[in-house]
């Protein structure tokens, strides 16, 4: 039997100089090929968990395995397995999309020919061919989002972490991004996605987990969760399980 895409076992994490743990004995599994959505109110721990999974934060207890490989201690070899699309634009605005892809492709371990082929493919799929040589700083927010996504997938990762990949974009760009993500998933890439766009999440995710106060409070397919909690959508389910009070005040 193959390893799950992500296996989190008894995870414990506390931020430095913080008296309270962010996670304690947290367990979670995401199977290969899933389109997994991680949701929760502000401050629930979504981004922290994603940062632990991508090695950006070093956790103190437990383990995280990506496709059977331990992520602890920032092992660079494991980083080939996944791609990351952060919420912030994480590229060089002074460079063009092609130049950004050339640089990040090299850092992802691709050779010159692979970079050339993959760049052409991604720019075409994401509608950036026309502007391939323009500086990204001249782009609209939607175009920058697409560049951000393209960089995250240039090395054909088996797992793709997406932190609010469609925030601040128009309907057309959102539709294009979601369609592309589904395409990637059909090609075998496991998606691990967080967002506050719950309607979008309903469209994309086949498995969801709700996190609140550092704990997983629900984890199943969306349809089963809705039946169990007698809700007809993710938004209702979200309010039902996490309450109505503000979390970031």
């Amino acid at each position, binding site marked *: 039997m193959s390893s799950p895409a992500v296996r989190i076992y008894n995870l414990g994490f506390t931020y430095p100089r913080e008296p309270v743990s962010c996670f304690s004995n947290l367990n979670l599994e995401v199977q290969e090929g899933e389109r997994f959505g991680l949701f929760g109110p502000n401050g629930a721990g979504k981004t922290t968990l994603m940062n632990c999974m991508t*090695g950006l934060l070093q956790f103190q207890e437990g383990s995280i395995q990506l496709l059977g490989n331990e992520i602890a201690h920032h092992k660079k070899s494991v980083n080939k397995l996944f791609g990351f699309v*952060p919420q912030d634009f*994480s590229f060089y605005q002074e460079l063009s999309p092609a130049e950004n892809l050339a640089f990040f492709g090299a850092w992802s*371990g691709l050779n010159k020919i692979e970079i050339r082929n993959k760049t052409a493919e991604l720019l075409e799929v994401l509608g950036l061919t026309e502007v391939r040589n323009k500086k990204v700083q001249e782009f609209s927010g939607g175009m920058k989002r697409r560049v951000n996504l393209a960089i995250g997938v240039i090395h054909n990762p088996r797992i793709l972490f997406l932190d609010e990949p469609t925030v601040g974009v128009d309907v057309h760009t959102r539709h294009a991004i979601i369609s592309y993500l589904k395409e990637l998933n059909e090609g075998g890439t496991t998606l691990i996605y967080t967002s506050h766009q719950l309607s979008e999440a309903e469209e994309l995710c086949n498995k969801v987990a709700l996190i609140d106060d550092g704990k997983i409070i629900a984890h199943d397919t969306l349809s089963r969760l809705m039946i169990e909690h007698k809700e007809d959508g993710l938004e209702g389910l979200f309010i039902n399980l996490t309450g109505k009070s503000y979390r970031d005040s």
Partner: protein
Amino acid sequence: MFKLWSTILKDVRILTRDQLGLIFMFVMPIVLAVVITAVQNSTFEMLNTNTVPMLICNRDTGEAGKQMEAAITKVGMFDLKQVTPNVTDKEISDRMHAKDAVIAIIIPADFTQKLKQKSDATAKKALHSFGMQTESARIDTGSVQPITLLYHPVLQESFRHSIQGALRSALQVVQNKEVLKSIYFSLNETALPDSLEQDLMNSQVGINEIPVSRDGSRNIPNASQHNVPAWTVFAMFFVVISLGGSVVREKLNGSFIRLKTLPTNYLVALISKQLSYLFVTFVQAAVVFSIGIWLFPSMGLPKLNLPSDLTGVIIVTLICGWCAVSYAIMIGVFAKTQEQANGIGAVSIVLMAAVGGLLVPSFAMPDSFQVVMKMSPLHWCLEAYYGLFLEGGTLKDVIVNIIPLLGITLTIQLITIYGLKRKNLI
């Protein structure tokens, strides 16, 4: 290697698109070298070839006053403008405020008489000590009213001291002449013959100036030899504005986050930045040196003479550049914002330049600053360049400056790696 090459390409692209940064890195050293050399050269010329306007008010009607005027003229440093004796001190000050002259000298009315009295007393005392006069001598030390020197407050202290030195020398000539005349008269009861007076007064031994160069050449270093290497070092370290800012921008704009999730060590990025900006500092030096060699003469400035050991110049330039680049990266790693990097970077470089001997010669530093001075990388860069440019040395001669510079550079690198590890960036 492909990763490093791609990173260098990325850094060079970003660098060449930062036009303001490029202007700052290349125009600033040129402007600094030209302006400072021109200023220092004109000061040098003012002291050595040009004359300083001086008002002279001779209220004395005797010979000594005239001799004093002649002696001042002979110094060759002043452009004398006569002021009639009846002009008041206040009127002289007003003329100085109107920039007629930056200095004025007032010879008091009884200068000849009092100087003669004093000279006679000195002569008598001398003769008495030789046992040639029985009458005991009395020297009336307070009898000569001093010559008044008025100077404009804009005059720098060092310049004022050199003027004072020249005037003292002129005054000494007049006084000596009077003492000689008096002794001669006491011995011979006739006046000192003019020919003997000329022989005695003009028998001063000359001074032969020889620069102590390592290569045995006797070329006197000019303002360009001093300033061009000094301000090139300063400019090299000012890459902190572009490079330190670039490291901070990378940290803040999220690229760092992405880089950390990729299967490549961030040290590749650091090596790339060092190589790219090392090239920049090398080109900076090449541009400024070229301007010193080919453009300075057409601007009326002394030509920069390259040392005979060109390999030494290249190696020293590379090591200075490496130290400058390492320092800039360290500032970028520790700074939290671009403003912090720019502010701390610029101020620290000016301070290190000041204590390192760029603004004040290192030999003139107080003892308490000698230890601090040796901690400044700019000091060692400057000493290495001066060893080549001013002393005519070779790489072997400046190795004593290169070793501490390399030590400081390695320390900076270690601090940078510590900072990156502490911030979980590598």
